[in-house]
């Protein structure tokens, strides 16, 4: 462990704002890249389900 306390870890030697904002933005973008395709997949399957139901009722 290179920090002696949790407060020191958060402070990052007065560079906390830079380090944490860099990681925060990166993490947000990575999550966006997972959630986006998953939602697109769900939307597509819902559309297909509607289409299949329409065709079945004809």
């Amino acid at each position, binding site marked *: *462990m*290179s*920090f002696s306390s949790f407060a020191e*870890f958060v402070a*990052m*030697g*007065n*560079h906390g704002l*830079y*380090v944490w*904002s*860099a*990681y925060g*933005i*990166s993490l947000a*973008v*990575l999550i*966006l*890249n*997972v959630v986006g*395709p*998953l939602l*697109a*997949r*769900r939307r*597509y*399957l*819902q559309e*297909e*389900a509607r289409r*299949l139901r329409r065709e079945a009722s004809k």
Partner: protein
Amino acid sequence: MNWTWFHKLGSPKWFYEVSGRWLPWFAVAAALLLGVGLVWGLAFAPPDYQQGNSFRIIYIHVPVAFLAQSCYVLLAVAGLVGLVWRIKLADVALQCAAPIGAWMTFIALVTGAIWGKPTWGTWWVWDARLTSMLILLFLYFGIIALGQAIANRDSAAKACAVLAIVGVVNIPIIKYSVEWWNSLHQPATFTLTEKPAMPMEMWLPMLVMVLGIYCFFAAVLLLRMRLEVLRREARSSWAKSEIKALVGAA
């Protein structure tokens, strides 16, 4: 030499089956590696003797910048394969990888700017490394826009492939920019081929993060490609029964 594997790659059905088996492994590996690498890099690696703790931004900045460039090379290779062998899956890979590459370039630029402020005293300078990275972002935007602007799928695939191949000239420019021109940007600190310019306890978490981000890329790319293959093959019998099975389960 046996080339059946290469031609199998062109079969969407085969790709869909195999990628479905691989995806969970990449996802688990990415989560584990990125989790371990983050904690290691942020909490356990020693601070830099000049930059203090702001250097910890390196553990996201460098892996992501690597991936942004590798992803572009992948686009160019996919473009070439698509043009030469007319493998339709190549265009799927190209179209699906482009947005991921653009996002990775975006993270590299943003984390670089945030790192630059405490280290160089400025968010941005128009030097070779930063400018060529910005051009990479615009190349990604160009490919994404081109792919969406052309209605005919075959023409769009050809246009994107050509742009991807031409744009790949930018990759060596990015790599050597810190050697060819005077730059505020530091030269490569992470390398696999030579003795690294950083001590082992700083280098190892970086290795873990690089492996993690590549696994992440593989998982997200397969996720996008599987949906795109299903869309494009929606009329074939295997895709129809797969969609029915998925809809029934949902």
